[in-house]
């Protein structure tokens, strides 16, 4: 009865899929029919189709199952039915990677590919190449060479493409068959010519000069096949990127703009535009070609042209301006994809005055285009907001309208991202943006997005003009939404209370209501915030309401260590490194909203690695890693031995990690270590040599140094030498000769330990710098102040900020690393932690006059020596 119902339903759906309810085991059972004599072609073809269908639906076959099905299928070679045979070829291709002993059909396939039946030949070649392994290649080589130069274009093409696939099996196939491919290149068939060129390129790929010769030769005769011409253009482009002078190549690509095939013309234009070094003069002819395409009858051409123009508008907006008129015509194109791209291109190139008109135009059909293109529109708007900050009102309105429309998470997230980005760069837009976002979360079906916006409201809301108006929006979430959103809303509420004392009593009432929530997390949060907020009412409680994001594994380790101590002194949370924040991709065009897994920070993964080394575990057990420096190369990259160093900073000592690579194939190094001469005050605690360093493998040795008592001496330069026992060995096998090796050494570059190595920045948004600054004075931090004139290499405020943060290792607080354009003076606020958990605050007043930057630097630190060190290292 059920089956009947289903059948009926399928009928209503318009036939339905006859293979819908296939089951793997049943089909494989049916495959036994292949063994029957005589073969029933119709029945077998049907079963084979079912197997192919299952495989293409992603059904997994075990090796046993696949092999059994494969051998049953080989029996079908006895049938002379053309359809069945071609299905067998498909089956072979699908099963070739799953089944064992697939070479069994080699002879049958070679027979078919050399046989009289043309329908079999090309397909047999393709099937043959999937079952051939390195050992069998010699057996089929002769047939393949014959097939490449075959008269039939289908056979020749199949053989050429198959030989490209075979290069995965044996690298030099293309080279061995290059002569035949050369002959095929003269074929009259467009496809054969194209495929032959592909094989020839594959054969010469490794040898740049051979490619240049090939391209130069073909450039003169210009291949008849448009496909081959396109490929030639791509090869020429690749060469242009690699070689220095390429006037001839460039000339060829330009001449292709006048080719009679549109495909080639487009390819040439696309190539010219995408050349890394092309300037406006070079791309002008390409743009005019694209301009012509914009008026083409074919939608594909129009789409290609406008898409390329859209891309180039980012880098050369002026060049695209010439096409504005044609693009205007495309705005009303019946193909929405073309229209969208045209408008977004115009938004990039157009003047500020045309923005309003274009936005109105795009609003008429934005609901008709797919999410993917909506995201393109949103990105264009984002770029526009950065370009014309004054237009933010129009754009914000548009974005909020888009937010109200239907759309997927990705699309909504892109809009929210854009609004947030606009708010960040433009303080005027903040109020409006927050209002739009508030409205959006009133009716947002994506929990993740709602949580994000609530977090943002908690951060930005308290500093807005009228914080109280957001409270209602947030509290509405507590009543209406799911648990995770409610929890986020509670946290946001608490932030308002902590930052705006006038709101505290009201928020406390709301929070106490939240304590009756049905969800544990929401209740816990509400109870926690109520308790904190009731106890004290100072701005210093902000960090408690909004704890800095700490790296959880490090926190756990530190707490475990702390439990083992007598716990006399309070636990110092400032030792814990912050969690890695996932950097948003900076480029506007490629914007991904892919959720990244929370991962270990660099420091954490190093800590794991270091604690697995037996000699080091004892030393680092009770300490936490402050910071790992970037990789520092102690050798040139082309030398015999490559040594790279990473400095791991701990409170009392540092671990130098030397990653060594031996690039001499005839040497085996033993007992490798990097000898360091400890500078004054430093002492070597421990050395871990690398026992064996074979050719081209990475070996690591460690040296542990204790810091000097005097912090001033900690900034030092350390001479290093690579010491090892070298043994000659056979380059092929790597087995060392029997005789004893000899000691040798190799001079490396000096290693520097700088101030920045010992300081970790804490650039947290949530920290109120001014409050911390005031509090530091009260806590008895020592304060040093000095004025400097920065060197001639620094000519702008941005440059000064960059070099200062890089040099001191401190992070800018409160986003003071952004300078308003055109400003002549700037206040840079810096914060960080010196090793040993010593908090450092610094304020740099920068002034610019006549390309000369003057700086007044004030440093606050609990340790006067550290403050002095910072001041003196700038000088």
């Amino acid at each position, binding site marked *: 009865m059920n089956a009947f119902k289903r059948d009926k339903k399928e009928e209503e759906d318009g036939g339905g899929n006859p293979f819908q309810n296939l089951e793997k085991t049943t089909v494989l059972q049916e495959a036994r029919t292949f*063994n029957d*004599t005589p073969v029933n072609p119709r029945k077998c073809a049907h079963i084979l189709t079912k197997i192919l269908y299952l495989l293409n639906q992603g059904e997994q076959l075990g090796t046993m199952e696949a092999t059994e099905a494969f051998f049953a299928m*080989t029996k079908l070679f006895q049938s002379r039915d053309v359809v069945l045979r071609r299905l067998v070829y498909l089956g072979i291709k699908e099963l070739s990677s799953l089944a064992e002993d697939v070479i*069994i059909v080699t*002879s049958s396939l070679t027979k078919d590919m050399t046989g009289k039946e043309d329908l079999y030949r090309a397909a047999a070649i393709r099937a043959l190449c999937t079952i051939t392994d390195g050992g069998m290649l010699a057996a089929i080589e002769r047939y393949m060479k014959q097939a490449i130069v075959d008269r039939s274009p289908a056979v020749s093409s199949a053989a050429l493409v198959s030989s490209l696939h075979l290069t995965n099996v044996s690298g030099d196939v293309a080279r061995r068959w290059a002569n035949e491919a050369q002959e095929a290149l003269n074929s009259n068939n467009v496809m054969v010519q194209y495929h032959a060129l592909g094989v020839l390129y594959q054969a010469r790929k490794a040898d740049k000069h051979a490619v240049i010769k090939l391209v130069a030769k073909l450039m003169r005769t210009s291949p008849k096949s448009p496909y081959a011409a396109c490929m030639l253009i791509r090869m020429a482009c690749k060469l242009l990127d690699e070689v220095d002078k390429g006037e001839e190549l460039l000339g060829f690509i330009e001449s292709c703009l006048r080719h009679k095939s549109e495909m080639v013309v487009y390819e040439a234009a696309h190539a010219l535009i995408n050349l890394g070094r092309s300037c406006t003069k070079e791309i002008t002819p390409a743009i005019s070609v694209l301009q012509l395409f914009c008026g083409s009858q074919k939608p594909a051409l129009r789409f290609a042209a406008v898409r390329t123009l859209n891309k180039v508008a980012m880098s050369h907006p002026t060049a695209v301006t010439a096409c504005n008129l044609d693009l205007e015509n495309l705005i009303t194109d019946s193909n929405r994809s073309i229209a969208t791209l045209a408008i977004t291109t115009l938004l990039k190139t157009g003047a500020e005055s045309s923005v309003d008109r274009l936005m109105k135009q795009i609003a008429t059909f934005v609901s008709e285009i797919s999410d993917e293109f909506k995201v393109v529109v949103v990105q264009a708007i984002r770029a526009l907001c950065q370009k014309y900050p004054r237009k933010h009102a129009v754009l914000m309105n548009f974005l909020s309208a888009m937010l109200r429309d239907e759309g997927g998470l990705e699309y909504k997230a892109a809009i929210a991202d854009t609004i947030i980005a606009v708010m960040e760069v433009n303080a005027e837009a903040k109020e409006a943006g927050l209002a739009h976002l508030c409205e959006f979360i009133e009716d947002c079906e994506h929990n993740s997005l709602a949580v994000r916006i609530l977090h943002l409201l908690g951060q930005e809301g308290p500093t807005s003009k009228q914080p109280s108006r957001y409270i209602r929006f947030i509290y509405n979430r507590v009543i209406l939404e799911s648990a995770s959103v409610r929890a986020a809303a509670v946290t946001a509420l608490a932030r308002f209370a902590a930052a705006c004392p006038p709101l505290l009593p009201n928020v406390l009432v709301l929070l106490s209501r939240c304590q009756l929530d049905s969800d544990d997390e929401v209740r816990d949060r509400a109870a926690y915030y109520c308790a904190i907020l009731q106890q004290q009412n100072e701005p210093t409680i902000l960090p408690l309401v909004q704890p800095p994001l700490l790296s959880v594994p490090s926190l756990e380790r530190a707490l475990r260590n702390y439990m083992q101590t007598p716990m006399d002194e309070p636990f110092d949370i400032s030792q814990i490194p912050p969690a890695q924040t996932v950097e948003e991709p900076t480029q506007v065009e490629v914007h991904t909203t892919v959720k990244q897994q929370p991962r270990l920070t660099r420091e954490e993964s190093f800590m794991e690695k270091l604690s697995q080394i037996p000699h080091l575990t004892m030393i680092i057990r009770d300490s936490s890693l402050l910071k790992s420096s970037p990789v520092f190369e102690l050798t040139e990259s082309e030398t015999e031995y490559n040594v790279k160093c990473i400095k791991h900073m701990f409170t009392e000592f540092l671990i130098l990690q030397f990653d060594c690579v031996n690039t001499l194939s005839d040497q085996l190094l033993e007992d490798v270590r990097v000898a360091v001469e400890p500078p004054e005050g430093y002492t070597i605690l421990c050395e871990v040599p690398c026992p064996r360093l074979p050719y081209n493998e990475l070996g690591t040795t460690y040296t542990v140094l204790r810091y000097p008592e005097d912090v001033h001496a900690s900034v030092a330069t350390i001479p290093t030498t690579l010491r090892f026992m070298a043994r000659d060995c056979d380059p092929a096998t790597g087995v060392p000769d029997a005789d004893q090796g000899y000691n040798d050494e190799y001079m490396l570059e000096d290693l520097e330990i700088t101030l920045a190595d010992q300081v970790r920045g804490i650039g947290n948004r949530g920290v109120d710098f001014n409050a911390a600054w005031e509090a530091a004075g009260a806590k008895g931090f020592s304060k040093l102040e000095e004025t400097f004139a920065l060197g001639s290499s620094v000519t702008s405020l941005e440059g000064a900020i960059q070099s200062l943060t890089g040099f001191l290792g401190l992070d800018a607080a409160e986003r003071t690393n952004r300078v308003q354009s055109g400003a002549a003076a700037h206040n840079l606020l810096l914060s960080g932690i010196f090793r040993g958990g010593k908090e450092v605050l610094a304020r740099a007043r920068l002034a610019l006059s006549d390309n000369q930057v003057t700086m007044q630097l004030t440093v606050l630190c609990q340790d006067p020596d550290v403050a002095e060190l910072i001041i003196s290292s700038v000088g």
Partner: protein
Amino acid sequence: MGLFDRLANLLGLKKKEVNVLVVGLNNSGKSTVINNFKREDDRCIDIVPTVGYNVEKFSFKNVNFTAFDMSGHDRHRPLWEHYYKDCHGIIFIIDSSDKLRLVVVKEELDMLLQHPDIAGRKIPILFLANKMDLPDSLTTVKLVAGLGLDRIQNKPWHIRATNAITGEGLQLGIEWLTDQIRDIYINKR
């Protein structure tokens, strides 16, 4: 099946379809033997070592043969067993001039005879002592002794000296096989 087909079947006119398996060591002449069974115009001129297997068709005395010409290369010999199950006869070809590898032949033959798909069945085996024209080739008597063919109890077998290049002895061999298959499979039905 149409009325005519059934009528023809009744009278024994309908051609019978049988599968035979052609095995033997590499370079014993399997493909050459099969090539000789084919019609004049279907034959190929140069025979190359078979990789995997080949399917060939030929007919003899109103019986349609589908011959699975297996590769004799040592790497591919384990693949023979995939085709044991549904064959009606076996042609085992021996290079009678290759005394050195006679032990290998014996080993392969024993493995074939002991295979579960073969052991219990009454399946005719035709041994062809190929390359009889070569000067130091073994006689069939010596081969029977050397391979212990006389110990095969439950299967009809027959040995014949052949020369696959000229075709000498092949007709008589296939005639025997055809008769056996007719007796065992076709007449029984």
